[in-house]
């Protein structure tokens, strides 16, 4: 094919290539330009910024590793990382468990499964601002708060929730669990549907209990999904910002200052853009490590491409 074409005059070859691939050149070139301007260039600029002192006004000044060194000694940054890790602990397993439970119910042959699938998925498409507005009211730290009202029935004293530094992060995790469980459900639902029915039939003939079938067949066969969901949920948890911004403003006493919240505060409240760039690279490295772990254990088959 190629050798035949190369015998043709250049103009003819260009014309043929254009006829064959016009759409590639018309669309790909502007998109590549856009990609370089809005993805590649900012990525590199951000790295450059970490070595500069960039105050919004005036020329940037080279300061070498100053901001990176400061990061190593910045106890608040480490607290933000620790808070984010804690948030993940509160968030990952419950999200997976709830997602799996929802998928199991939907998959159990109940009527109007489609309707309930929609109900469970609804928070996924709803903005954090709306859910946070309601959540803030549910978890009001007064006796008139709905959750406190419910707790009073089981004899628990009113809690401060968002104003209590040991509870606030867990309340925010609860909001995220509610918001995300629906998409976890979709993954598990797809996984459940791909399990061979014959396995269940064989187990039933052997007289295994529903509980035993779950632990010996369903749960282990969902392993790739457990892993995938765990990784994506972990990556998501490291990027958490909206709920902390909306409900606690990083407080009380920095208890809900997550990495991204701290990055936002440093960059756009204190205008330490260079230091915020350092923090964004720290976030990038954490996410990169998690993604590489995913690659290593999942191989090509469940990879992103």
């Amino acid at each position, binding site marked *: 094919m190629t050798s035949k074409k190369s015998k043709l005059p250049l103009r003819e070859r260009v014309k043929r290539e254009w006829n064959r691939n016009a759409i590639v050149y018309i669309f790909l070139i502007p998109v590549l330009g856009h990609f370089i301007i809005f993805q590649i260039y900012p990525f590199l600029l951000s790295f450059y910024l970490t070595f500069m002192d960039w105050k919004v006004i005036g020329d940037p000044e080279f300061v070498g590793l100053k901001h990176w060194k400061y990061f190593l000694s910045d106890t608040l940054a480490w607290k933000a990382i620790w808070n984010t890790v804690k948030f993940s602990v509160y968030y990952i397993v419950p999200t997976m468990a709830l997602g799996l439970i929802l998928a199991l119910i939907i998959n159990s042959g109940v009527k109007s499964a489609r309707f309930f699938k929609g109900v469970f998925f609804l928070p996924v498409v709803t903005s954090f601002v709306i859910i946070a507005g309601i959540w803030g009211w549910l978890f009001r730290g007064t006796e008139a708060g709905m959750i406190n009202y*419910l707790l009073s029935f089981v004899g628990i004293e009113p809690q401060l929730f968002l104003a209590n530094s040991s509870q606030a992060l867990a309340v925010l995790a609860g909001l995220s669990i509610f918001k995300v469980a629906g998409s976890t459900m*979709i993954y598990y639902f797809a996984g459940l549907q791909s399990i061979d029915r014959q396995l269940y039939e064989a187990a039933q003939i052997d007289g295994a209990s529903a509980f035993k079938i779950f632990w010996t067949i369903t749960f282990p066969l969902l392993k790739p999904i457990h892993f995938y969901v765990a990784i994506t949920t972990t990556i998501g948890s490291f990027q958490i910002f909206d709920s902390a911004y909306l409900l606690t403003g990083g407080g009380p006493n920095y208890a809900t200052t997550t990495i991204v919240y701290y990055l936002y505060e440093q960059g756009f409240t204190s205008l330490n853009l260079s230091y915020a760039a350092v923090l964004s690279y720290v976030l990038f490295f954490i996410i990169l490590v998690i993604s590489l772990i995913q690659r290593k254990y999942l191989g090509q088959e469940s990879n992103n491409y």
Partner: protein
Amino acid sequence: MKKVISYIALIVLGFCFLLPFLIMILGSFKDVQFAQLDPLFWIPDHPTMKNYLYIMRDGMFIRWIFNSVVITVIPVASQMIFCAVLGYIFAKKQFPGRETVFWIFMAVIMIPQQLLIIPKFIMFSNFGWINTYWALIVPELWGIMGVFLVRQFLQNIPNDLEEAAYIDGANDIQIFFKVILPLSVPVVATVGTFSFISNWNDLFQPLIYLTQEKMFPVTLGLASMLGKEGNFGIEMAGSTVSFIPTFLIFLFFQRYFTEGIQMSGLK
């Protein structure tokens, strides 16, 4: 017995998931200060439209909705077009550098958007894009994830159709519009619905690039209301209005959301 447990769980969990939305809608008809609100929200004693009238009164809320529409509709339309064409290119066309470019695209997905926000803020300040729609529209005109979804979808479609059209003398652009695009309607709809939700609900980018209240999208407007209005009913009325477009999109395109989630994750 198993069925009974399933139904009980379904109803209890379904109620828990709908409760916040019930609180929002019923709350929007209550005229009451945040501090005085009864925990038993669902008894609508004196339903009132006051909150809705209040948010519509000064026109600011309507402006926020309008801003949201602008920064959502344009990127959604553009994403659908560009992701359809690029997905087709990467799935079906042969051209030098195809694999390399796609590999770079996929590697860039791993960069968290929060990393780009600081350099983009600096760039947009230089462009004069702060407090304009440009900052929120131009970067969102196409998306790597959408390209990936369309490519995945088209790779599973046999090449015979295209080849038949080539033999009939159709060119690239004709083939794209007459053969590929009609086939890709579901995946392009998926790209559109995802793009709608992420743009309509985005809080982080508007928060960085916008400081003037009249430029706010409805998310940021609501967030500013959460801070300053002490009135739960007004907040909930605002939330309800901003929720309606999301809900309608969800209602009509639910299938595409779940398909998109599955396609982007496991295959």
